[in-house]
Structure formats: structure tokens, C-alpha cells
């Protein structure tokens, strides 16, 4: 073990300069090796102080750092790194696409569109992918005219885009036909018939459960009122329980409508993002 340590010490000091280039940046080959082994935290650690003028080497390092941050779902810093990759780099087009996707995922649609609009994708397939991404962003912005215009320009003969465009079209149709649930209407419905607001908001099981509970306690209160009079302790107790449940049912229905709307929007946003992501991964991997 002693001998091993001695040998290791000598050799490590010999290797150490190989880790760094003239600008004190780590060796891209080693970084690529770490990315290949999915050791993303290690890549970010080594590239923490990445500096120096743009060159093929620093371009690669910015790309690897951006890719590692993207893999660790740190999308904002990932976009920053990927945008530093210069057009001379073989990673340039991929970096721009993923930087735009990161911005899209973060809801920054304007910067995402700017990245894609300024990108000269090069070949026809990449150009098609660029249009597809722009169409997806338009759909996320609910700009249906722009979506249809961009989708119409797409060449769907390529396998990467064909199925995803069908899904995007289906999302667009569903979003266009969707009628927003009004919290006020849900509240009024529940005031008239307990639980009806929740059924209107799409939470049928919750609505039925609420209806049974509120009506049940209403009947209990009524029964005690009739038999014992309004001033009886049981009437007051169950009347209070009924009132609490009744008001809670209205309040809950207002929230259910909001939650339901958020769930719908969130579901479709995720579906669109997923469909933007799949062709990117298929195209570049």
C-alpha cells in the first residue's frame, strides 16, 4: 500500500497539468468522459470557474457544463452556459435548441423564441425542428394562428416530427374547445345545491360526497328543530355543524374550480413540453 501511494503521488503530479489547458480550464476530454459517465455534479465542480476567450476548447466546455446543468434540471444556468457556445462549435446548433427548450420549460417564451428565430439551423431537418419548436411555443402562448401557420409550414414526412405534430394538433384542438371553469359559477352552484359546484368543476366524487354530508347534517338539524325546538342544545350544535359544512362547501367549490382549471392548464403545458422534448432528444442523440 505504501508503495502504491508513492507511485500514485508521483504520477498524479505528472497528470495534473494535463487536467488544465493554457487558460487554466480543465481538459475537455476528461470532462467528456465524466459526462459520458453521467457524473454531472463532478463536471459542474470542475467547470465552476470556467473562463477565457471563445475557442473550440472553451466552447466544448460551455456545452458540457450546460448539458450537465440541464441533466441536473438546473435549466436557467444551463441556458446561460449553452448560449455561450459560439457558431464555430460543432455543438452550436444543439446548444441553441436546448437553450431555447430550457427557456420554454421555464416559461420564458420570448427569449426562447428569440433564440430560435436567430438560429440558422443549417440543414432542412434542423430547420424543420426549429419550426416545430416555434410552433410548440406558440401553442404554449395560446397563439393558435401562429401555431397553425408554423405547423402548416412543417414537413411531417420525417419520422421524428410526424407523431409529435399530431399530438400537438390534438392539444391545440382541446385547448381551443376548452371552456374555463368559473369559480364564481361554482360557488353559486354549490350555494343552490351543495356539491354541485364541485361537480361543475369536474370533481364528481367530491361533489357527491359533499352533497351527502351537507344534506345529511341539514336533515339532522331539521329533525332536531322539529322535535326539540330551535333553542335546544342539539339543534344549535348540529345547526352549527351544518352551517360550517354548508359555507365550507361553497368555499371549497370556488377553490375546486380554480384547482381544476390549473390542473387542466398544467396537464396540457406538460404534454406540449413533453412533445417538444422528444424530437429534440431523438434528433440530437
Amino acid at each position, binding site marked *: 500500500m505504501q508503495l502504491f*501511494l508513492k507511485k500514485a503521488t508521483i*504520477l*498524479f503530479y505528472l497528470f*495534473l497539468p494535463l487536467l488544465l489547458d493554457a487558460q487554466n480550464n480543465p481538459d475537455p476530454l476528461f470532462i467528456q468522459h465524466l459526462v459520458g459517465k453521467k457524473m454531472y455534479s463532478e463536471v459542474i465542480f470542475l467547470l465552476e470557474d470556467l473562463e477565457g476567450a471563445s475557442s473550440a476548447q472553451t466552447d466544448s466546455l460551455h456545452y458540457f457544463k450546460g448539458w450537465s446543468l440541464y441533466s441536473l434540471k438546473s435549466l436557467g444556468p444551463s441556458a446561460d452556459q449553452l448560449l455561450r457556445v459560439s457558431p464555430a462549435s460543432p455543438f452550436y446548433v444543439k446548444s441553441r435548441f436546448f437553450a431555447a427548450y430550457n427557456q420554454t420549460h421555464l416559461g420564458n417564451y420570448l427569449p426562447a423564441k428569440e433564440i430560435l428565430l436567430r438560429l440558422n439551423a443549417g440543414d432542412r431537418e434542423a430547420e424543420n425542428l426549429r419550426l416545430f419548436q416555434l410552433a410548440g411555443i406558440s401553442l404554449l402562448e395560446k397563439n393558435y394562428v401562429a401555431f397553425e401557420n408554423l405547423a402548416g409550414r412543417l414537413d411531417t414526412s420525417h419520422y421524428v416530427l410526424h407523431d409529435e405534430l399530431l399530438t400537438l394538433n390534438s392539444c391545440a384542438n382541446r385547448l381551443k374547445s376548452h371552456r374555463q371553469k368559473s369559480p364564481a359559477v361554482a360557488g353559486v352552484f354549490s350555494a343552490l345545491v351543495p356539491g354541485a359546484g364541485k361537480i361543475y368543476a369536474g370533481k364528481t366524487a367530491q361533489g357527491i360526497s359533499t352533497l351527502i354530508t351537507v344534506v345529511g347534517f341539514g336533515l*339532522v338539524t331539521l329533525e332536531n328543530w322539529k322535535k326539540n325546538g330551535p333553542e335546544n342544545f*342539539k339543534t344549535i350544535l348540529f345547526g352549527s355543524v351544518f352551517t360550517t359544512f354548508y359555507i365550507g362547501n361553497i368555499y371549497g367549490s370556488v377553490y375546486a374550480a380554480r384547482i381544476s382549471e390549473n390542473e387542466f392548464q398544467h396537464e396540457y403545458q406538460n404534454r406540449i413540453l413533453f412533445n417538444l422534448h422528444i424530437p429534440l432528444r431523438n434528433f440530437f442523440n
Partner: protein
Amino acid sequence: MVADSLFAAGNFFEASVYYEAALFYNAGTLPEDELNLKKAYCYKFLERYQECLTQLDQINLVSVPDSVRRSVVYEQAVCNYLAGDAQRALMKVLQFKQLGAPSAEDPFFAGIKTLEILALNETRQWEQAERCAVAFVAEIAENEEVKANLTGRVEKLFQKKNLPKELKSEKAKDLSRFVPGLGQFYCGRVKEGLVSLVVNASFLYFGLHQLYYKYYFTGYMAGLGIFHKTYFGGMHRCEILAQTENERTLKSFNASCLAILEDLYPGGGETL
């Protein structure tokens, strides 16, 4: 060596990166298996046990010297145990023993024995765990007095009445189905069981009482309706209680066991 210095300074993450660099730039000069082992140590100290095990799996046990092979199997046993897989840890302990029975002078001796006892406890193999603990005491006790004292403590700890009772979730649930609160009694929560019994009985009585006096809605909704909720809620609670109680008692038993072993071999637990 930078990696070793970082390791010695407790900067295990940084050390792991430098060991990886050493592996990457190594052109067959350095023993790769030893570098892998050192990198695995980094992951172990970072409590990234699965990554540690993956790193250890990269070591070819056939080609390494005996000392490295034993270190690798030992670390596999430890990391499996720390990753919560006591069964696999025991398998590795067995493999370690097959590489040569550890003697009292062996640096792994205390660690492997402690690990074996704890893993046997976790898998509820009490008799074997007791035999192992008694043998451990006999092998390294300084004198007869210490040996007798610690053996007595081990035997007392492993008496049937002191062993953690394995509570069965299904049984706890069924007991509460039969009499509300009985499942909690079974799990050792007497006060909670009494409260559950009183609450359930009160709502049931209230419901039946109201129905008897023809308060049908009150009896059904406020009495039986709430009784239904507390009754089934109590059953579900008993299932969870049995599981958490099993974990608690086992942890407590292992802590007692470790306290005895610490008196026998100070720092034995830490060697893991």
C-alpha cells in the same frame, strides 16, 4: 497526492473527482482496482452507498491481491447494510469469511463481527446473533472478568422477553376490527387504545340511542356516520402503528447491542 490530501482533509467529493482523473489518465501504471477502491471510500463517506457499491463492482476480484479483495468485500457488506439491505450485507459477510476467517488482529475483525451481529438482528435471526456476539466477546475480552460481565449482558439482552416483538400489521388491523382500540393495545399504545375505545363506543352508543328514540337522521349521520369514520380510521392507524413500532424497537435493540459491543471494543461501531 492531491486526491489523498483531499481525502485526508475530509473533502470526499473533490477527492472522488481527482481519483476519477487518476483513473482516466492512468495508462496501466497505477493499480486501477486500488484507485476504484479509494473512490468507493469517497462515496461511502459521502453516504452515497449505491454509487459506492457500483464503484466496488468495477473491481475485478479475481485479479486483485488478497488484501484488496478482502477490503472490497468488507466495504460491499458495510455499504449494503448502510443502504438498508441487511440480507445482502449478510451474504457479503459470509463471502468475507470465506476469504479467510478473520482473527482478532485483523483490522476488519471488529467491523465485520459488529456488522454481522447488527445485520442478523435486522433479519431477526436472534439465536445466531447471540451466538455471534458471545463468540465475539470470548475472542477479544481482555480477561475472564470482562468476558463474564459482557457475556452476561449479551445473554440478558437476548433473553426472549427483551427481544423486539415483531408486530404484524394485519393482526393489529384485525384486532381493531374486532374491538376498536385492541390493535393499539397490541402495538403497546395503551392510552391511545383506551381513547379509541371510548370514542368509538361513544359514537356507537349515541347513534343507537338516537335511533331508539326515533331520531333517525341524527342517529344515522351524527352517530353511526362518525362511528364509521373513527372505526375504519382506527383500523388503518393500527396498520401504520405496527410498522413504525417494529422499526423503533429494532433500532432501539440494535442501539443496546451496539452499546455492549462498544464496551468490548471501543470504536468498533465506528470502524464500519
